């Protein structure tokens, strides 16, 4: 069934179709509608789930973790300051191998107080051991939630599904909402290898001596390394049933490109339009949109970018005192490769400033006119 829905509701429908059993969340702009709709669904019986109201995001995640340990499929959503408040619990989720799936609306961190799009909230949680997917359309949001449950539960690693504030969260688009029976066929009930139950008492999260801790982390990393192949495999299975493929990255006209943009989020779609415009002017541009950011899609990025002369990475975020975070990651993936492109780093769109087709024209002009990045960071649209 096709329906015009907002990005936030794409998260809600994804959780509903995945038959989430426990939802605990605290409302925050611009995430509110995600949990509003889910609480309605729980109230009217559309979704047979326990909706737990909590007093903070820290508690929301804690409730999800308890439910997950008991063997329930759990979902939550948050944004910015809320995600930051959850930080401690995020480590618990991944370290305790609890496959919670969470929507995060990318919103700028305060101060200055902002409710607009910016990736610094989710990227500040880069090293918490969560899988991170960055989405560019409402359809992708819905499809990613369903696939994320499958990937997360197979490897017992939590997933974060990330979408830009307003540019996606509050934007209505046509979304194909899959039939429940077909989603059930794709995503069987959660059946964890261990669960907290009075029938078989165990304790979780006890003191772990130096004799054991490192192995837990080694295992988490080894399982993280399995994610890219599993995302591909799960994507193909999903495509067979629903005709849409998710994958780790989206490659647009990169094969013969002299310049490739590396993008994510909604800017990753606007970039495609900019690529078309540049090609009309005779400039062979392409776009590599990163969908899976953690674990980083090393192989895909290397394979696509190693044959390109110039790469321009766009970041809607910054690691203060260093570079844009996608820029760091792309350079790190390409370092030491037999052939690697010239890589330029651009920062745009912080705190919801618009990233337009013209932003990409400016980036292309800069990149094509230089033989090396003369500045550590090239700022787009900043009032200096």
């Amino acid at each position: 069934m096709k329906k015009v829905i907002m990005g936030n509701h794409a998260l809600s429908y994804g959780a509903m179709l995945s038959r989430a059993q426990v939802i605990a969340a605290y409302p925050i702009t611009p995430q509110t509608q995600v949990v509003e709709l889910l609480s309605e669904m729980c109230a009217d019986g559309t979704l047979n789930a326990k909706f737990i109201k909590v007093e903070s995001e820290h508690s929301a995640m804690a409730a999800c973790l308890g439910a997950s340990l008991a063997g329930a499929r759990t979902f939550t959503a948050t944004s910015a300051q809320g995600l930051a408040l959850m930080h401690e619990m995020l480590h618990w989720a991944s370290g305790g191998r609890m496959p919670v799936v969470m929507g995060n609306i990318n919103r700028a961190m305060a101060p200055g107080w902002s409710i607009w799009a910016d990736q610094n909230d989710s990227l500040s949680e880069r090293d918490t051991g969560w899988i991170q997917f960055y989405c560019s359309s409402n359809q992708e949001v819905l499809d990613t939630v369903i696939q994320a449950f499958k990937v997360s539960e197979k490897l017992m690693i939590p997933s974060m599904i990330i979408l830009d504030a307003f540019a996606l969260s509050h934007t209505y688009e046509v979304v194909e909402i899959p039939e429940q029976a077909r989603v059930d066929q794709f995503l069987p009930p959660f059946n964890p290898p261990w669960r907290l139950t009075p029938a078989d008492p165990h304790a979780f999260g006890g003191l772990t001596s130096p004799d054991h801790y490192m192995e837990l982390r080694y295992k988490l990393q080894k399982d993280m390394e399995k994610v890219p192949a599993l995302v591909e495999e799960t994507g193909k299975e999903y495509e067979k049933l629903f005709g849409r493929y998710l994958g780790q990255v989206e490659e647009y006209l990169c094969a013969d490109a002299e310049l490739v943009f590396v993008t994510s989020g909604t800017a990753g779609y606007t970039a495609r339009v900019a690529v078309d415009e540049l090609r009309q002017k005779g400039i062979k541009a392409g776009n590599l949109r990163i969908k899976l950011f953690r674990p980083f899609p090393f192989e895909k990025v290397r394979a696509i970018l190693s044959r390109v002369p110039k790469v321009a990475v766009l970041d809607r975020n910054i690691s203060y005192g260093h570079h844009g975070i996608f820029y760091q990651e792309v350079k790190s993936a390409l370092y030491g490769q037999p052939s690697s492109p010239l890589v330029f780093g651009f920062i745009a769109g912080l705190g919801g400033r618009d990233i337009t087709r013209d932003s990409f024209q400016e980036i292309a002009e800069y990149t094509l006119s230089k033989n090396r990045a003369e500045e550590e960071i090239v700022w787009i649209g900043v009032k200096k």
Partner: protein
Amino acid sequence: MIEIRFHGRGGQGTVVASKILADALAKEGNYVQAYPEFGVERRGAPVFAFIRIDNKPIYDKSKIYNPDHVVVVDPTLVEAIDVTEGLKEGGYIIINSNNPPEHFKFPPKFKVFTIDATEIAVKHRLGTLAAPIVNTAITGAVVKILNLTRLESLVEAIREGIPIKPEDNVKAAIEAYERA
């Protein structure tokens, strides 16, 4: 691609108007993208809503700066802000007003159309006398003037998308469509 910008005041249902229009257009197989001004809405303050329409997927996620047409839900906004900002030459300015188009002094490169959506809304008892809800009536006129969808698709979208007094809203939209 067609891009339309709606001007209204917080509480008038401007965002809902763009959503209803998007629903109607999607029913006819169009790709649509509708969004409110990215921000905090306050009752009575000027608000914007936007819609993009195409027969192929819409990838541009930036804001609309050069709309093909604008719709003014509250006529007092014409004095308060420049509703023609960025409007393309030949574009329509559709205004909810009981004045004739000549009443508004816009450059001749724009086409002006007025519809008394307030009167229609009051007649069908939508909202209150002091604050009538004019959004569904407006969509009737917009669909007709811009030749966007069949009336049936709009009626269906209103029935599905407006929980309060759907049939009165349908009647208002039909009346505006017929008057336009």
